[in-house]
């Protein structure tokens, strides 16, 4: 050990002044990770920032445009409409998913055999492919399946075609988010619930506190951080997700469910307007940075490992 350290030091006396041998070894261990992330995650963003300043025709940079692409994006009614759709979708999906997730966590909190099974069952929509989940929901909501007609028939609504009406299509899209991600919220919140010392609730119960009172005065305050973390993580997901809209509604009818993620995809991979698409990607990324920063702050506050 001594000897090898000495020989390493001898070989690179100049570098060893600022790099201990242990550090050199550690750098060797992390370099593949750093290279992969730099080339495949950071580089694309740098390239995107560059491309976003040009007019791009099928990957040929044809004309320098400065910030024109950004101005074009920010003033495009199409993009503003999809920003609105994204906000509506994210808001409702977030509120409902969080509520359902918290409800599930409380309902299935105790580790009985049934509850463990039920937790696994609600997680199934989360673990399967998003594409397939949305495809299956599209089949349920389609008129051909006959399910909606059979369910809504008794209310005299058997002719309703859910995905053909803008409001209903948005509701279906929100349902898709809730259906898939409630279990994710449940798991995060369940871990939070389990970390509340049970003696607290017991003491309160002995003092005669009702279940609702215990929930409001003990569970909720103790769950502040897990709930905030769940909110931010769900929000990052909902603001960006494109598969739900692409598969379930195709953005329709009349672009009413065209979310920002879907616009980005269309601009890049359907219209091939790479200059504008990269500008939009950078804008969306900047928006995400705010959310990610909040996420990291919360994580720190938790003293996370």
């Amino acid at each position, binding site marked *: *050990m001594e000897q090898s350290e000495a020989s390493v030091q001898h070989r690179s006396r100049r570098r060893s002044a600022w790099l201990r041998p*242990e550090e050199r070894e*550690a750098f060797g*261990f992390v370099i*593949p*990770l750093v290279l*992969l992330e730099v080339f495949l995650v950071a580089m*694309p*963003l740098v*390239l*995107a920032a560059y491309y976003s300043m040009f007019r791009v025709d099928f*990957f040929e940079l044809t004309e320098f445009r400065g910030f024109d692409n950004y101005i074009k994006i920010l003033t495009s009614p199409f993009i503003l409409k999809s920003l609105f759709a994204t906000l509506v979708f994210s808001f409702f999906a977030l509120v409902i998913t969080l509520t359902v997730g918290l409800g*599930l966590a409380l*309902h299935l909190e105790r580790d009985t055999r*049934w509850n463990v099974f039920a937790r*696994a*069952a609600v*997680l*199934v*929509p989360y*673990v*399967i*492919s*998003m*594409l*397939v989940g949305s*495809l299956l*929901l599209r089949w*349920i909501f389609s008129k051909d*399946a*006959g399910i909606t*007609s*059979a369910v809504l028939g008794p209310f005299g609504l058997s002719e309703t075609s859910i995905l053909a009406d803008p409001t209903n299509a948005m509701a279906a899209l929100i349902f898709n988010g809730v*259906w898939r991600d409630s*279990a994710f919220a449940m*798991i*995060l919140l369940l*871990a939070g619930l389990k*970390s509340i010392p049970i003696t607290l609730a017991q003491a309160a119960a002995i003092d005669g506190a009702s279940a609702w009172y215990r929930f409001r005065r003990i569970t909720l305050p103790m769950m502040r951080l*897990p709930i905030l*973390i769940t909110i931010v*993580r769900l929000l*990052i*997901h909902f603001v*960006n997700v*494109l*598969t739900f809209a692409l598969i379930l509604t195709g953005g329709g009818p009349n672009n009413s469910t065209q979310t920002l*993620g879907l616009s980005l995809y269309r601009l*890049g*991979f359907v219209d091939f307007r*790479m200059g504008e*698409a*990269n500008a939009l*990607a950078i804008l*969306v990324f900047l928006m995400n940075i705010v*959310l*990610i920063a909040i996420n990291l702050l919360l994580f720190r506050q*938790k003293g*996370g*490992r």
Partner: protein
Amino acid sequence: MSRKWRSRSLARRAITWALNLIILAVALGPILWGLSTSLKPTPAILRYPPQIIPETTTFEHYLFLFETGIGRPILNSVIVSVGSVFLCLLVGCIAAYALARIKFRGSAFLLFGTMALMSIPLPSLLVPTFTLLANAGLTNSLIGLTLLYTAYQLPIVVWIMYSFILSLPIELEHAAMIDGYSRGQILRKIVLPLSGPGLVASGLFVLTFSWNDFVVAVAMNSSEATKTLPVAIYGYLGFFGRDWGPLTAAAMVSIVPVIVVFLFFQRFFLSGMTSGSVKN
């Protein structure tokens, strides 16, 4: 008093079970309905009122899919999934070990950076990444896709393995060091053999991500030869249109392996999901 109490608890139990049934029906209904559809002969699929359980079952849609070449996309998905699991575990374990056990300048920054990367949403990266891969000639290639999946899932793998290695007793490693083991030997002969649960948890994460991913694959790989299974299913959606027999059959082909793996390794999934967001 006691009778009132009993009837109240009975009502309570009834509500609990009603809730349980609703939860199961909503969560699993769409999947079971898809399974039922995939087993019906074509004329029965559009019959009204809908049959929940098929009167006659048939595997014609599944056979049709395999005759028309769903085998290739399945193989591609397997290749990409196995490749990215292997690369992720290899690169991730080595890095996680260094982060957990060696003091070096920049390690705190690296951990923080990994954490930040974990929450970058993929859709915002698609267009820029396609621009880069197109320049590097790596679009429509299984290697390009494998590398991307590796880069996207490495942060979570590093995080899971980092937490796991921290929880291992360090005394063994000290003893090995005194015996003259190098860092690499310690990792191979002491840390990895003890890291089973961590490896399984992170491997499962990468596996399901790579098997399920649709957005990255559809953006980067549009050629027939390198299509993965989800991209092929998306293609069917345009091709079969309202022919839901083959569509739901393809959906089942994609999700049945995932559900089986998930049910077997549930415990590991849960530990992976909460790491990186809730201290454990």
